[in-house]
């Protein structure tokens, strides 16, 4: 009971409740939703695994986005950076139908992630050094990013036949869990380590809450801002590899499309405010999973993909309104009134 009470007061309560509600809906109306099977090749298969697997690149993007938003900024270029990263990696591997890579696989992966980090350095320089508003600064790569990806691939969709590339978005033979999920787990661990074992978290929040005071306390505000954008670029680079590997190709136009919005949504669903300050890693992860669960649920109950965005929008609207401070206050007032009228009735009786 005490645990429950504590949980209901924690910042994770609402994101968790939203997710639980969705899962409950699935449990009631979708057959075998929670069933996990072991396939012939030893891989695990089932909707819960599928959700986590599909959510992994979003989780990774949202982790980077959490830090950025906590500083009071936003990085709307991450979707486009995914495309650059995927393109860089695929170009390095080449589209040779025999499946022989042009360059070593490791080098190609580093190129993909490196492209993301470069994009992060670009964004970080604009925001931290030149003090350009984050939305405007990252808008540049949002619009230019896919063009850059096109340039890298010469306007072609390069399909990669090199087998190991598909392992990133699929399974490495002999390992039952999808690789993307494992990568996401690694990133989550990295972020938790950064949060707990370094003072980056303290500094990010401090900068997000009060930049002037942070400066007076000796914090290098420029460096902190620079770091969060680089980290966001790193996350986007990693997520780009996964997205590219899903379709085994570099599709400059569609890779990571609109994912920046989902990432921002995941962060806000998790309870981190857009004005910056306190952030909630756990909330972000749950937020990302909630978004993916919602998509999967819609498909499972037969909502067609063209209607999906509308339904998704309604559900998310509900979640956000319930989380809002104003709604909570209205609810409290309602409870108060109920309480007082109940007391009156008791008196009458």
């Amino acid at each position: 009971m005490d645990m429950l009470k504590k949980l209901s007061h924690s910042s994770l309560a609402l994101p968790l409740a939203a997710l639980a509600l969705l899962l409950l809906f699935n449990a009631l109306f979708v057959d075998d939703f929670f069933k996990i099977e072991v396939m012939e090749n030893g891989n695990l298969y089932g909707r819960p695994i599928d959700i986590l697997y599909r959510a992994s690149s979003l989780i990774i993007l949202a982790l980077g986005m959490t830090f950025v938003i906590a500083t009071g900024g936003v990085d709307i270029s991450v979707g486009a950076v995914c495309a650059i990263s995927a393109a860089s990696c695929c170009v390095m591997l080449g589209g040779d139908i025999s499946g022989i890579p042009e360059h070593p696989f490791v080098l190609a992966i580093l190129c993909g992630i490196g492209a993301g980090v470069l994009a992060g350095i670009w964004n970080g320089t604009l925001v931290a050094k030149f003090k350009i508003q984050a939305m405007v600064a990252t808008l540049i790569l949002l619009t230019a990013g896919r063009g850059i990806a096109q340039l890298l691939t010469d306007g072609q969709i390069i399909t990669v036949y090199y087998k190991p590339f598909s392992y990133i978005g699929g399974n490495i033979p002999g390992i039952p869990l999808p690789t993307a999920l494992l990568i996401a787990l690694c990133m989550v661990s990295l972020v938790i380590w950064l949060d707990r074992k370094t003072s980056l978290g303290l500094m990010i929040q401090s900068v997000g809450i009060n930049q002037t005071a942070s400066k007076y306390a000796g914090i290098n505000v420029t460096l902190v801002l620079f770091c969060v954008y680089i980290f966001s670029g790193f996350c986007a680079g990693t997520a780009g590899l996964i997205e590219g590997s899903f379709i085994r190709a570099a599709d400059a136009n569609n890779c990571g499309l609109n994912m920046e919005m989902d990432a921002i949504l995941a962060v806000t669903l998790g309870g981190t405010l857009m004005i910056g300050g306190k952030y909630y890693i756990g909330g972000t992860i749950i937020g990302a999973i909630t978004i993916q669960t919602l998509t999967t649920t819609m498909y499972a109950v037969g909502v067609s993909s063209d209607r999906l965005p509308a339904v998704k929008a309604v559900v998310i609207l509900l979640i956000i309104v319930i989380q809002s401070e104003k709604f909570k206050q209205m609810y409290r007032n309602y409870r108060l009134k109920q309480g007082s009228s109940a007391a009156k009735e008791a008196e009458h009786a």
Partner: protein
Amino acid sequence: MEQAAKDTYLLTMRHIDMFFPGVKALKDVSFNLKKGEIHSLMGENGAGKSTLVKVLTGVYQKTRGEIEFDGQVIAPKTPLESQKLGISTVYQEVNLCQNLSVAENIYIGREPKTAWGGIDWATMSERAAKLLNEKLGLSLDVNKTLGFYPVAMQQMIAIARAIDTQCKVLILDEPTSSLSDHETARLFEIMRSLKEQGISIIFISHFLEQIYTICDRITILRDGTYVGEYEVKNLKRIDLISKMMGKEISEGEIESNLDKATASSDVLVETSKVTVPGKVKDLSMQINKGEVIGLAGLLGSGRTEIAETLFGVLQKSEGSIKIDGTEISIKNPMSMMLNKIAFCPEDRKLAGIIGDLSVRENIILAMQAKDGMFRHMPRAKQNELADYYIKLLRIKVSDREQKISTLSGGNQQKVIIARWLATEPNLLILDEPTRGIDVGTKSEIEQLAVSLAKEKNMSVVFISGELGEEVRTCSRVMVIRDHEKVTELNGDEISTAHIMQAIAGDYHGHA
């Protein structure tokens, strides 16, 4: 006689009250402005000068009272309305458009039109040039963008814009704060020529020198109340200051002093001829180990700027700063923190606390910034440190995880002081550490400053607008006026009366 005096007034404001929710900003304030005079509105920050001006220009609506202008009662609802009546304002910050031309800036919103309804550019440029030339004696290319000209010139252009609209009263709100001496002199010439043209000017400035150079009469406000109206030539500076501060000065006034710290002869910080353009002028000073040195001066005199220069927030353009005998280069606050200098800024809310973080996090912040990102202090150590300072400074909190924004001002201040004590500084700069704090906590902080100097041999720079506080705590007081060091008071010389005289420029010391 009475009637005759009344007739000479262009503007009279009578019994003005102004309430903001919960605050009474003006209480029964009167103000009389003659035609063709330069009238200064004086008072410390928060005395109500700006509020009064804003009531006059229609930014705020007065709660009670009457404004009579040019023979009729007015009650402007918007700045535009008061402008149409002939009351124009030029604010401290030039609020014109940098990317428009000079002519456009002057005529924006009332451009001369052609027969077709379009803007008559030729006439506009011609008129702008003529206006600047005739009224202000300036000849400049009115088609260049405003940003092309220096701030001082922009201010003149703002004045040109203000006086073109049938202006009878011109309000200049701190127009000189970003101007050099030479530019200020130029502005004064223009003010005199406007005065000759019959325009009345309300001049607001923190610089006493300037008031005595340019103004005819002074109205003094204090804490939102009217103190009085005086001819400048009949009001001694010392009287002006005591009226602004609300403190009668009697010679030989005795303050009850704390058992003060005695400075050692070792010099900790030495500055020579340090200049920050527009903020600090030619500052040479010494801070000895184990002393509490006070910086006294009116608000806006440059006390804070000196502190910010010592902490590396402001960058000096000339001069040198030595710490422990070695000259150091200052890039940012961190370089001073590494030299063991700490600074509690004046504006606690804006530059001190990180509101949403806990008391613990606020305390370890500076130390952690000094250690760097990857030398994270273990949680147990953080707790220990936070608890130590909560106990040492008697900070009232429910526990160390309480959000700092929920504490009272005094306790917030203690947390900020704790943040800096945790870095174990050799020099602690306290800028207005007791502002807005209850009396009990106030004397605790004063005692703390003295005991740090005495027991830890720490040097403390103590900045306060409250002279009594300086007298109680400081073993040496540096008096600042118009961004310059005027004099230093030592030992027995330190008294409220002497400090005030020094601020007014009437104190010449025993030596």
